[in-house]
């Protein structure tokens, strides 16, 4: 009973914080629009199979009689060269793009910020080592690095995701390290040291939680760019392989039919555009609210 009360009590302020964050997110009209779009995209990604008018067209389907039909009430975005419903494929493509992007960002953030936190908090030769490795990775143009990795490991969506992780983690290491160095100088860290708190606890309980906001902001802004990179790799034939309904791949295939069926390129393109834009706007919005200093009330 008492235990329960403790957890209730501990939860209440967290809920209050979350409510406040949500309130602030919701206040800016652009951010709100982006938030709604992102939530919709997530819903679409989860339920794509159920809401797609032609779930059987998502991967296969061969209906040459109906190939390259223009948009109509039946096929909202028209059909492709195999007669598949482009709308259904775009819907399902949401889940492919989001899943791959979330995976890529998750691993990049985890690996990157872990190393950054250690480098920034511990300092010394470990810091030197981690940062030199980071520098090496950062000295390659990111797209080139990704392309080389996929070329080495063979084109597939999973390898493209891995390639993105490899080329993105160093950015988080840098960001986290900078944060950790500045937080390390704060008095509450000194206070913890004076108490006798262990090194590990200081890093992961005091320093990291206070560095996480900019990382989250960066991650949400990067979501857009990662989705774009994945689509780019697929467009080049290095990511998802046919018949996967990946947006970049769809745009790539569609270019052969551009003159006769411009809608074929247009709609996957719009899907990419909307998704990337919403994530970027949301990231901007988050930047404004996630800083505890700027909101005393």
């Amino acid at each position, binding site marked *: 009973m008492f*235990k329960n009360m403790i957890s209730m009590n501990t939860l209440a302020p967290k809920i209050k914080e979350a409510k406040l964050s949500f309130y602030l997110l919701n206040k800016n009209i652009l951010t709100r629009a982006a938030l709604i779009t992102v939530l919709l995209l997530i819903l679409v990604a989860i339920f794509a199979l159920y809401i797609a008018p032609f779930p059987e067209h998502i991967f296969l389907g061969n209906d040459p009689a109906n190939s390259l039909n223009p948009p109509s009430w039946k096929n909202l975005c028209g059909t492709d060269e195999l007669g598949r419903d482009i709308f259904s494929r775009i819907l399902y493509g949401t889940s492919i793009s989001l899943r791959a992007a979330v995976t890529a960002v998750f691993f990049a953030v985890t690996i990157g910020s872990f190393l950054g936190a250690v480098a920034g908090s511990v300092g010394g030769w470990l810091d030197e080592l981690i940062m030199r490795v980071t520098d090496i990775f950062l000295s390659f143009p990111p797209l080139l690095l990704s392309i080389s990795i996929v070329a080495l490991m063979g084109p597939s969506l999973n390898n493209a995701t891995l390639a993105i992780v490899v080329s993105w983690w160093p950015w988080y290491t840098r960001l986290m390290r900078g944060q950790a160095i500045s937080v390390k100088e*704060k008095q509450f860290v000194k206070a913890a040291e004076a108490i006798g708190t262990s090194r590990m606890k200081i890093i992961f309980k005091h320093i990291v939680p206070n560095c996480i906001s900019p990382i989250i902001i960066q991650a949400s802004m990067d979501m857009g760019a990662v989705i774009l990179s994945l689509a780019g790799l697929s467009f080049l034939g290095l990511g998802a392989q046919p018949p996967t309904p990946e947006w970049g791949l769809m745009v790539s295939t569609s270019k052969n039919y551009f003159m006769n069926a411009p809608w074929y390129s247009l709609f996957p393109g719009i899907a990419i555009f909307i998704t990337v834009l919403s994530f970027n706007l949301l990231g901007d919005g988050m930047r404004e609210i996630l800083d505890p200093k700027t909101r005393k009330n």
Partner: protein
Amino acid sequence: MQKYFEIKNLIINYKTFEGTKEILNIDYLGIDKAETFGLVGESGSGKTVLALTLLKLLAVPPGEIASGEIWLDGENLLIKSESEMQKIRGNKISMIFQDPMSTLNPVFTVGYQMTQVIIKNQKLNKKDAEKKAIEMIGIVKLPDPERIMDKYPHELSGGQRQRIIIAIALSCGAEFLIADEPTRNLDVTIQAGILKLIHELQKEFGITVLFIANNLGLVSAICDRMGILREGKIIEQGTVDEVLRNPKTDYTKLLLKTVTPARKKDKQVTSTTSEVLLEVKELQKYFPVKSISKATKNLNVKAVDGVSFTLNKGEILGVVGESGCGKSTLVNTLLLLHKPTQGKVFFDGQDIFALNKHDLRKARKNVQIVFQDPFWSLNPRWLVKDIIGEPLKVHEKLTADEYLAAVKKLMTMVGLPPEGAFKYPHEFSGGQRQRIAIARALSVRPKMVVLDEPTSAIDVMSQAQVLEMLEELKKNLQLTYIMISHDLSVVNYMSDKIIVMYLGKIVEYGESDIVFNNPKHPYTKALFNAIPGLHTRNVSELAIIKGEVPSAINPPKGCRFHPRCNYCMEICKTKEPEAVTFEGRLVECHLYGEGN
């Protein structure tokens, strides 16, 4: 008859997501031309909001001017358009902020910024504007104006920056000056200089000044009339004499009581034993200068340079001196938050620099620290219960229930409601946050607590309460304190012994009664006479130390204070004075050597 400046029925609200809050409600406030009006209030009472509103710089929303009129020289400012206000700002009204850095642009030189303002406001050509800027820098009494012109804001000290801001304000011929706690973060010696400057300029140019402060002593020193602001309302106004001699409201009476300079706690000879708890011998802490240039490669900041003292169980040791003199470095080194460069420290007979990692962690229990800034000394992401309980988690094994009970007991002990355990630090005021920090320090029953400027970031009111509580806790828990402050009145009030530091060295050290009542070292004397108190009715009574604190990388030869000392003799420039006992205290000055 209408006054030069008047506020009538001003109501300002703040809209937050929890609803609308009234933050200012002023029926009437009037200031005559060429008068200095002091406005005193605690932080959060609405002082800064008022200042911003006068310039129409208040952010709207969340702020909202619900009603009211602000008259300046026969014009209602609140109905002016933004472009009209732009002409008034700077030309007619000027503002000096608490933090001069926020007003100056860090990427341009001071001279460039000044000339730009002058060109814009006075329509002078570049050459004349530069001449004018140099002239103004001279007027605010900064040495070597031409050199200052080429400096960037960060190359100047806080006091110098504040002078530049005043120069900018005056260079456009401002007639009405709003000073919002202009000396809040400055040392008393620098503060005295700024106060004098504002006072002189006010007399010379006949400007009207609205001086906002959180301290009655300041207002008493330079103002003609004053008002007390509390929770957005002016609860009392009149001449300084009227208000201070014959306060009408209880709140003012309370404020008057809490101003401590002249007040001395009744020192019932407390449980002071002659058992030595802490012994510091020739402690040194140098910080290497981070630099790529060869010339400065192997230089050190000599933050603490040979400090020795002893502290008995149950005593309170006060450490005073201007900021940068090494007070914090001294205690941080004692606590091994910095590695010492040289010297020995014995705590309870143990040589603490010789301890291994494990013993050190155990020893840390015995000495705790409370930091100056309660906003950054508490982890903003933790609940109060976790903050206060952190030392318990490190040093003791408790069940969840015992732990929570212990935290709540500590909170009660420092006068906080135990329900607050489940809140975040930002939901508390400065004074309350400092109580949280104190509770954390006390949770593992230390023998000694180091208080690094424990009250300088909180209100005068809360300050008195926190000090009283510390006093109480010390008695009940048999604590020993080291208390750092640049506020001498606080140290005077609390301490048994006092150390006066200058540039990393102790200049005077002894029983605080003896040192306070009859300071001997020229630096101590000047420091003590720079604090304005209620008795100060004229700024010219305040002492100013000429020049600025020299760099601790290359301290002056001989006596470190000699370039600023009024009693400097030939010997002072070459020979470092030794500590001698003189009239019951140790003092390092050639005036008190043998034969004198």
